[in-house]
């Protein structure tokens, strides 16, 4: 394993220390060592919280900051944060108007968030949740509630953070975020597996010359394994999975997010986006804004995800609002 590590059991703590030192203009620690909050002063408005396992940098911690999430619960690698961490993140973000906890659909996170919501209620703190399920490949459309949350979560946080900062009530924030995720579809293609540092070897294989279509952010397999394709063919395949599912149609305005899974050279993400843009535009769909880069990764996996979100006037305003987090900066 050619990696930069000390004791794998301490990797999350050491990462957090390094992260806090580097980004002390954006985030700060809290009394819970697995909860990080924005340095922005807590205002009398809805708090926005997320959380998830580590190993997806810049997610989740990198989406805390101005007009993004207010606090985040940090888990072990590929493992949900504790219920207490979710609870403490909610408390750290609490400005007296309730907290929106926006997370991804994984059984660990579901259980821990559910417990945290109960614990918060006992303490008189109202927490409402939205669970991201944008990954088309992970379940059929009629079982959308079973689908995983993947890179679409970033757009969900962007919308939630912006809405809270426009002084939306808790219900308004929840409604806007739910709309955002309902309007969002993603798919991933994996080209190489990843190695959890404490495990030391890959626990699934992607044969060279093949690719895994519909892969999840922890290497969960998807729709099919097929022969490695050119960038243009991959673009077509991804667009053909994502567009019909919502469905996105001529006249729609959308946000497009292409994220690398970690080790794919960013140059190649632009090659991929170049074709995706062409295919989407050809359908008469207008790309209002796009993001290309390593926004949601799985350690050193190669591959990419495509996320498309349909906009309406409200979502457009929210997406276009400036933001300042480590992973997503929209200046001015």
């Amino acid at each position, binding site marked *: 394993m050619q990696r930069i590590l000390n004791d794998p059991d301490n990797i999350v703590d050491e990462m957090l220390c390094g992260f806090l030192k580097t980004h002390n203009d954006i985030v700060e620690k809290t009394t819970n060592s697995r909860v990080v909050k924005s340095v922005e002063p807590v205002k009398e408005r809805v708090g926005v919280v997320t959380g998830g396992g580590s190993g997806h940098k810049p997610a989740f911690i990198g989406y805390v900051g101005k007009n993004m999430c207010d606090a985040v619960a940090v888990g072990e690698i590929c*493992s949900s944060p504790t*219920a207490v961490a979710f609870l403490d993140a909610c408390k750290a973000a609490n400005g007296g108007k309730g907290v929106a906890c926006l997370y991804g659909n994984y*059984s660990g996170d579901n*259980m*821990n968030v*559910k417990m945290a919501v109960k614990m918060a209620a006992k303490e008189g703190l109202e927490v409402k949740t939205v669970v991201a399920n944008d990954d088309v490949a992970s379940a059929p459309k009629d079982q959308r509630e079973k689908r995983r949350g993947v890179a679409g979560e970033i757009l969900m946080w962007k919308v939630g953070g912006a809405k809270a900062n426009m002084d939306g009530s808790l219900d308004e924030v929840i409604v806007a975020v739910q709309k955002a995720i309902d309007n969002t579809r993603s798919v991933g293609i994996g080209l190489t597996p990843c190695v959890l540092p*404490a*495990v030391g070897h890959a626990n699934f294989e992607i044969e060279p010359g093949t690719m895994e279509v519909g892969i*999840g952010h922890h290497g*969960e397999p998807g729709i099919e394994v097929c022969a490695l394709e050119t960038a243009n063919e991959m673009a077509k395949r991804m667009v053909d999975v994502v567009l019909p599912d919502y469905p996105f149609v001529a006249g729609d305005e959308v946000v497009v997010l292409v994220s690398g899974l970690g080790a794919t050279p960013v140059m190649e993400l632009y090659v991929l986006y170049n074709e995706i843009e062409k295919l989407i535009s050809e359908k008469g769909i207008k790309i209002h804004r796009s993001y290309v880069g390593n926004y949601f990764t799985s350690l050193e996996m190669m591959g990419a995800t495509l996320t498309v979100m349909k906009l309406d006037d409200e979502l457009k305003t929210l997406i276009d609002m400036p933001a300042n987090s480590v992973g997503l900066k929209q200046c001015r």
Partner: protein
Amino acid sequence: MRTFNNNEGKPILMAMVKAIQENKGYLSEVDGLIGDGDHGMNMNKGFTVFETRIKDKDISFTEGLDELGTILLTEIGGSMGPIYGTILIDMSDVGKTFEKIGLKEFSTMLAAGLEGLTGIVEAKVGDKTLVDTLAPAVDSLSNAVAEGKSFSVALAEMKIAAEQGKESTKELVAKFGRSSRLGERSRGVIDAGATSCCIILTAIADAIDILLSEKHELA
């Protein structure tokens, strides 16, 4: 003897810890086949923290279950935190008033653990999760109670039920957790949580058995 003293139950806790530590690699391997390969690691982390905390402490069986459950729940997270956390804490909640623990008490405790679990997960028997181990173990104990069997015999039968339950997951398709995304591809391997649950129950049974026979010799 047909009971052991709750406040003499620390050896059971230590046996649980040892069983998980010894099977750390194996559990991760099992999880690696259709999950993300960290189950042994996750469990080992929590159980080892627990070991350090209680090493030099006088602690009862039910106090220990609560402590271990709380560590899993509040310090480990993942899926195992809430799942085993809930099972162990609920076992402790029901059991902490017992001074002596016999078959009936133990059966009540484990049933409470299972009931707690069903409060937070939807998985039923047949969904390829640790419920497939825990539920038959609980059933086996309550049958033993009904049939008036000895604690020792009941434990031996519970181990068999747990083992069979675990093995049954091999032919099942996962309905919950990471491996549920694999659909048919999840068939053919046993479930990681079902495996750790079987290991823990076996360790508990063997350790109780030793306590019972030690008492017997002394008596």
